[in-house]
């Protein structure tokens, strides 16, 4: 009889193909959306952590201002650092190297081509600390750094946009009023977690940047690497104490700069991806709900017909539980079917999205089960409970149902 019930349910599914299709669709949409979005979100978060770890866990950054990156109250523009600040940081015993960094966005021009990009002024220590390698050409020479010569190292994207197939080395690009000789090309790192292009930059000696681009001597960021074996928290305390002293901050006054290690940076960045993941999850939850409402709607619209069908079956000798079993099997088969399609579609979309965003593919069993469970529950509840009500009526009442 169980097999017969299963066949009856299958027949009912095929007979009501439109209803079945819409129910399955509702489940597929809900399940696929949730799985795809959460998978991509989680992959992004993991990628951020991986990206930051690639920088090395021994990196400490010093930024003027408080809450600058956390988006807190900004207040007055923070007092920037100077080259002397950088040298003082580097002089601290736990610090291996410290690189001063100043950045801005400008248009770089070569021939008829132009491209807006990040212009970074720093020195060779930055390449060392941030682990940038050269594809071709060379880094800056000491003399070039000291004198602030107009030479630059460019990223792969800038090369592509300005030079196309031509060789950039030895050519001269124009940034603002300055002409700058290209001496090096970095190895491509590809897109980062947020889809931002990591190869989109021009790097020049910081003095050149001060004089020819920024028009001041402000250092925006000190990028320091800590010696192997030194304690990072202790090093950060040292940097803090040093900067408080240099910036004349009295006892009890708050810092007007921030010292971050990679852990904090990771936390901050994963916090941002967390918000993104949350947003995606919210959108997905809405899809799930919409799918659920769709299923509910289909089931409720068809309740009159189903009630009459139940009346007919009861009248020809079916027992209530046989009819109910049929409807339950019908609901379960549809839910399973829709759920499985949804899972595969969701994983497929997740895979597609992950590879497009260049993040690891991280399907999560708990979310798959949750999405599947919810949709299946909606399908079963709204498929089964109206049937149960109908099966409890007398056959003639079910038949007369309108």
């Amino acid at each position, binding site marked *: 009889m169980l097999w017969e019930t299963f066949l009856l349910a299958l027949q009912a599914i095929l007979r009501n193909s439109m209803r079945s299709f819409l129910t399955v669709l509702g489940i597929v949409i809900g399940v696929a959306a949730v799985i795809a979005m959460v998978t991509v979100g989680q992959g992004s978060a993991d990628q951020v952590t991986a990206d930051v770890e690639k920088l090395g866990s021994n990196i400490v950054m010093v930024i003027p201002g408080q809450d600058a990156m956390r988006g807190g109250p900004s207040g007055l523009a923070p007092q920037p650092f100077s080259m002397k600040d950088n040298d003082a940081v580097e002089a601290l015993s736990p610090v291996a190297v410290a690189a001063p960094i100043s950045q801005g966005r400008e248009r770089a021009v070569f021939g008829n081509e132009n491209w807006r990009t990040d212009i970074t002024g720093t020195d060779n220590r930055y390449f060392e600390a941030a682990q940038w390698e050269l594809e071709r050409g060379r880094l800056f020479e000491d003399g070039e750094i000291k004198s602030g010569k107009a030479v630059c190292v460019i990223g792969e994207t800038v090369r592509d946009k300005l030079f196309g197939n031509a060789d950039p080395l030895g050519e001269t690009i124009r940034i603002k009023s300055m002409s700058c000789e290209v001496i090096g090309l970095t190895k491509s790192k590809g897109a980062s977690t947020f889809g931002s292009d990591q190869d989109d930059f021009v790097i020049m000696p910081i003095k050149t940047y001060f004089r020819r681009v920024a028009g001041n001597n402000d250092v925006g960021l000190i990028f320091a690497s800590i010696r192997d074996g030194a304690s990072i928290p202790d090093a950060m305390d040292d940097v803090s104490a040093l900067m408080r002293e240099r910036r004349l901050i009295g006892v009890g006054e708050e810092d007007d700069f921030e010292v971050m290690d990679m852990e904090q940076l990771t936390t901050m960045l994963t916090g941002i991806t967390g918000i993104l993941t949350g947003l995606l999850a919210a959108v997905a939850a809405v899809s799930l709900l919409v799918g659920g409402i769709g299923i509910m709607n289909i089931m409720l619209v068809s309740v009159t017909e189903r009630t009459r069908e139940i009346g007919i079956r009861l009248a020809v000798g*079916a027992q209530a539980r046989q009819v109910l079993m049929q409807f339950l099997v019908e609901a379960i088969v549809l839910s399973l079917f829709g759920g499985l399609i949804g899972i595969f579609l969701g994983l497929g979309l997740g895979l597609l999205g992950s590879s497009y965003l260049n993040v690891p593919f991280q399907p999560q069993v708990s979310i798959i089960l949750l999405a599947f469970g919810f949709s299946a529950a909606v399908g079963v509840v709204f498929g089964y409970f109206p049937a149960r009500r109908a099966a409890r009526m*007398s056959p003639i009442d079910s038949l007369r149902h309108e």
Partner: protein
Amino acid sequence: MADPTPLIALIGIWRTYGTGEATVHALAGIDLTIDRGEFVAIMGPSGSGKSTAMNIIGCLDAPTAGHYLFDGVEVAGLTRDQRALLRRHYLGFVFQGYNLLARTSALKNVELPLIYKGLPRAERIALAMEALEKVGLADRAHHDPSQLSGGQQQRVAIARALAGKPRVMLADEPTGNLDTKRSIEIMKVLERLNGEDGLTIVMVTHEEDMAQFSNRLIWMVDGKIARDEPTRKVA
């Protein structure tokens, strides 16, 4: 050798719809016994309670008051499942409004009661085809109700009631939508089943011609039995 217990016994049956001002007594104290092998026709004006009585006899509806004994067993004392078994194994019902499953072929509709009887598929199809042949619809076996005329749908409903070879056939205006020629063919099928297989038939009809095939005629008015007499056959 007659069995002393009547097959169907209605004792003081009332069926009341609604409450207060809107109360309708569809059946107002019906006493009726039907024995095995009888062919009973029920006639009466519209609204006189014929369908209501049929539904109660068919165990599809419960009386408000009174007793209904089927083969000596009080139906009200049975569980829902037992009443379902009674319908499954003893009763074949033809509804006034057909009540076929939509988007389901004539054959599958006729097969439906046989599924619940637990018959294997091959036997079901054979029996269903046989029943469809009896009502002259073998060539429409794979048509859905929506592709059939009213009369054809009615014949599918008759075939469904016949397919399970019930003991009692309850037919509510089985020929209401058929032309005279078809109606007479159907009546002849019923007459033969009644004569040869001893099928007990209770049939509601508005047509004197069809009532002619019965042995007993019950005339209902206002929820009561007004006359109950042997059918006067007109040659």
